[in-house]
Structure formats: C-alpha cells, structure tokens
C-alpha cells in the first residue's frame, strides 16, 4: 500500500519536474490568454500539496483527467488498450515457460554435453539481443521472406506468435540459465542421491525431487520477469504495431498527451506491484519454509 502511494507520488513529482505542464499540454505558440486559462483549468495556481491532494482525490474516484488528443477520459483510452497488452504479456510468459524450463532441465541433466553447451550459448545470446532487433529479424525471416506470419497488427493467433516470441526470449534465456544452475546445485544434495540409490528412475528423480526444489528460486526471478515483460512490451508493441498500452505510451509522448502517459504509467506500475505480490504468495505456497510477513514464523 505504501508502495502504491509512493508510485503516485513519484509520478506526480516527475510530472511537476517538467516545470510548467501547460507547456506540455498546449501546442507551441499558444497565446498568453490561452496559457492562463489552461493553467486555471488544470488547477495549477494552487499550492503543490493541494495539487497533490487533488491528484489523489481524482485517482480514487477514477478520474485521471481528460486525454488532450483523444478527447476522452484518459482512463478509458488506456483501459481500452489494456487487454492487448495483457494478451501479449501472457503469451510471452507462456513462451518463457515452454522454452526456458525444458531448456534449463535438459542442460542440467545432460551437464557438459554438446546439448548443454548449445543451450548455454543460446541462453547467453538470448540475454544480449535487444528485443526490437529480434522483432525486426523475425519479421524479415517469417513475414518478408517466408510469408508465414503477418508483419504486424493484432487479430488472429498468427499475429501473436512473433511479438510473444520476441518479448519472451530474454526471460526464457534467463530462466534456462537460472534453472540449470539451481538444478545442478540441488542434484548434488544428499536426498537426491538417496532417491537415486533407492532405485528410482532418473526421470522421476529429476522431475519429482530436483525440479521441485530448484523451481522456487526460478519462480522469484520469473515473477520479476513477468513484471518486466510489461516494460518490454512497450518496445515490442512499437515494433509489431501491436495496439496495446506500450504503443499508446509512445504515441502519446509524441502527441504530447501527458494525461494518457501518466495514466498508463500508473496502471503498469500497479500491475507490477500486484504481480510481485502474487509471486511472493506463490513462493510461500511452494516453499513452506518461507512465511509471509504478518503471519509470524
């Protein structure tokens, strides 16, 4: 809760840092009377704490101001694009899990083999490639050369494949690297050796004993990444002309539509906080040794 409050304060301070927001909202070359009228309409003649109080008041009543460009409430404009961003983020989480988890397990189980080496190199590269470049390369290969997938836009599942992959690659790479190292650590523990000695099959030991214990470290990082994907979506959406919040933010910055930018930034920060909270809960569920604050332990 304190964090959420802090988020609004940071957004407010950054907006005020720009000096006079009137310069941002009005087109260049506006007449002095227009500036004056606008300043009063925005409530800028009042003191800073009063302005912040009003800003919070608006926030709680869901009134985040009018979009200057769309001429609609900013919240409506942002919420309209929200499902597209959620869809993209969810799909890239799926990519992360489908690619990252098996890759990490295989690399750990086949340690020091050629496959392990290949996965490690791929994962390392995956962490170094900028998401927009991967996006452009995917478009060149699958849309321009092979004509398998549409270049941009949203609609069918085919539209979703490339953006989800581009966005999910980095976290898939991180997941694979992390899972590999925590699996290796766990697999040397005595209880895993005991399980093997009891005669359980290797697959069973890996999946039931090692993975279960290695995954808790991964979940924390994965959670951070899911939240980070929201940020990465800004860039990915621009590459693929995906009509989500990220693209809206970039467009609104170019349109100088700062109420929309502010609303979108706060919405994403809110999601980020909520996701991190959920991750903490998941973590506590999987690993009973970790207790949530407030429940003692």
């Amino acid at each position, binding site marked *: 809760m*304190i*964090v959420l409050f*802090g*988020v609004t*304060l*940071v*957004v407010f301070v*950054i*907006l005020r*840092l*720009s000096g006079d927001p009137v310069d*941002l909202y009005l087109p260049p070359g506006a007449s002095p009377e227009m500036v004056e009228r606008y300043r009063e309409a925005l409530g800028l003649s009042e003191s800073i704490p009063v302005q912040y109080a009003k800003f919070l008041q608006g926030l709680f009543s869901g009134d985040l101001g009018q979009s200057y460009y769309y001429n609609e409430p900013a919240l409506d404009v942002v919420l309209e694009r929200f499902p597209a961003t959620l869809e993209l983020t969810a799909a890239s989480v799926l990519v992360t899990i489908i690619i990252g988890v098996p890759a990490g397990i295989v690399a750990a189980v086949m340690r020091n083999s050629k496959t392990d080496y290949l996965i490690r190199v791929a994962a*390392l*590269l995956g*962490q*170094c*490639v*900028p*998401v*927009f*470049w991967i996006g*452009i*390369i995917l*478009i*060149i290969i699958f849309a*321009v*050369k092979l004509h398998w997938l549409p270049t941009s836009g949203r609609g069918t599942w085919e539209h979703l494949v490339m953006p989800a992959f581009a966005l999910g690659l980095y976290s898939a790479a*991180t997941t694979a690297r*992390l899972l590999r*190292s925590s699996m290796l650590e766990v697999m040397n523990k005595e209880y895993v050796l005991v399980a093997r000695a009891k005669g359980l099959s290797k697959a069973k030991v890996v999946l039931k004993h090692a993975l279960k214990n290695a995954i808790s470290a991964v979940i924390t*990082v994965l959670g951070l990444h899911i*939240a*980070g994907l*929201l*940020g*990465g979506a*800004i*860039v990915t959406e*621009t*590459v693929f002309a995906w009509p989500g919040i990220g693209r809206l*933010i*970039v467009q609104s*910055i*170019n349109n100088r539509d*700062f109420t929309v*930018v502010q609303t979108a*930034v706060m919405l*994403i*920060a809110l999601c*980020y*906080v909520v996701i*991190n909270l959920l991750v903490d809960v998941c973590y506590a569920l999987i690993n009973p040794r970790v207790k949530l604050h407030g429940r003692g332990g």
Partner: protein
Amino acid sequence: MRRSLRTSATGTVGLVIVLAVLFCAITADWISPYDPLEQNIERKLQPPAWLKGGSWDHPLGTDQLGRDILSRIIHGSRVSMLISVAGTAVAIAVGVLLGSVSGYYGGKADAVIMRFVDVILSFPFILLAIFVVAVIGPGILNIILIAGFTSGVNMARIIRGEILGVKEMEYIEAIRSVGARDGTIILKHILPNIFNVLIVMATLEMAQLILVESSLSFLGLGVPAEVPTWGKMLSEFRTLILSDPWIAVFPGLAITLTVLGINLFGDWLRDYLDPKLNQTIK
C-alpha cells in the same frame, strides 16, 4: 572456480570485444572511412560489399540518405559507451550512498530509503526511463542521469545487504572502539571489503544500460536527431526491411556483440573475484 583471464576463453573474448568497442568510440573520428553525416543520394541504399550491387567503397552499404553505414556504426559506439560508462558511474555513486547509509545506520534512515527503493523498483526500468525522458526531455545527460539513478537504486539494495554482513565483523568494532568516525569507517574499512561485489555489479549494469539506451533511441526518445546511435539506425531502417532486409542486420549485431562482450567479461570477473557471488547477483 578461480580462473585467470589467460585460461578463460570466454572472458578473453569478452574483454577483446569490450576493448574493440571502446577503441571505436575513442577513435571514431579517425578510423571511420566517411563522415557519418555525409549524405550522397546518388549512392543511397547500396548493399554491403559481398551482396550483388555492393562495393568495397561502402563495406556495410549505405542507408536511405546515402550515408556510410560502417561509419555510422563506428560513431554509434560513442553514445552507447558514453551512456553505459557514465550511467554506471552515476549508478555506483547513488547505490553506494543510499546503500551505505541504509545498511550502516539502519533504523529510520534504512526504513525510508528501502521504501523509496521499493517504490522506484515497482516501475519497470524502461518505463520509468521513458516517462522521465518524455517529460523532462531527451538528451544524453538526461539519459545518463535517469538510467544511472534507477540502476543505482537497484544496486543500493544489494550494497545494503553486503554492508549489513560486513559491519558486524570484529575488526569494524575494533576500529570503532578506537574512535574512528562513521565516514572513515564506511569509506576506508567497509567499502573496500565490498569492492568485488561492486565491480561485478557495475559490469553487468553496463550491459543493461546499453540495452536501455538502444531501446530509448529506438523509440525516438534518446539523443538528439543528428547524433548516430545503433537504436536510432534500427528505428529508421524498420520501414526499409521489406525492400532491403540486409540493412537491419549490422546495427543490431553491434548492440548484441557489445552486450555479449560485457556480459562474458562480467561473468568471468564474477567467477574470478568471488565464486560465491553467483547466487547473490541475478
């Protein structure tokens, strides 16, 4: 495993890449075959030398205004390196200041600083950077400050943890008992002990900052229009990939290789300086 650079192939490759990019950044004016801003419409969109229609006059081809791509990539290394190095310096300053106050003094200062860290970290890094740059305005200095500050906040948390571990050690208590001042203790006795952690974090942060800078440039929120950067080149080339797909390859390769180089070197550094660190960072 503590391995010297001589026995670590990946570490060496990383260092060579980093040094090469640094060399390009410093000597860009002398080693570029052309002026990166020089336009020549007659030779526009000439492909790289090894493709049909290319020539060795422009080894990596020319862009939509006939500017030499190789020269622009060499010059692009300047912005990337400047922002990455200066941003990391800002990050270390912010991280050490917040982290040591928080870790050393504890109590209220710790609580306030850590809440502040929580708030800043509840924005996706790139989102905060975009927001600030959009509101305050683009510019190299602004990017260095905001990117450095945000990374620094991230570092502060780890530095705080390290300091908490060090400050209870007996030798610190001994120094304190002979009447050393807090500032002296932090600067002379605690910080040198967490130097390894600091240097490894800084390296990995440099790689992150290159990605952030290129993303901001790609979105058109980065540096002034006339300065060539890798991210901006890719954003300009995005509309050309239908007719000239080769054009998008080189700037992206430059970013990837640079980040790869820093990461390889950073990984080696981490193993070399402190094998235990693997778990603390990342």
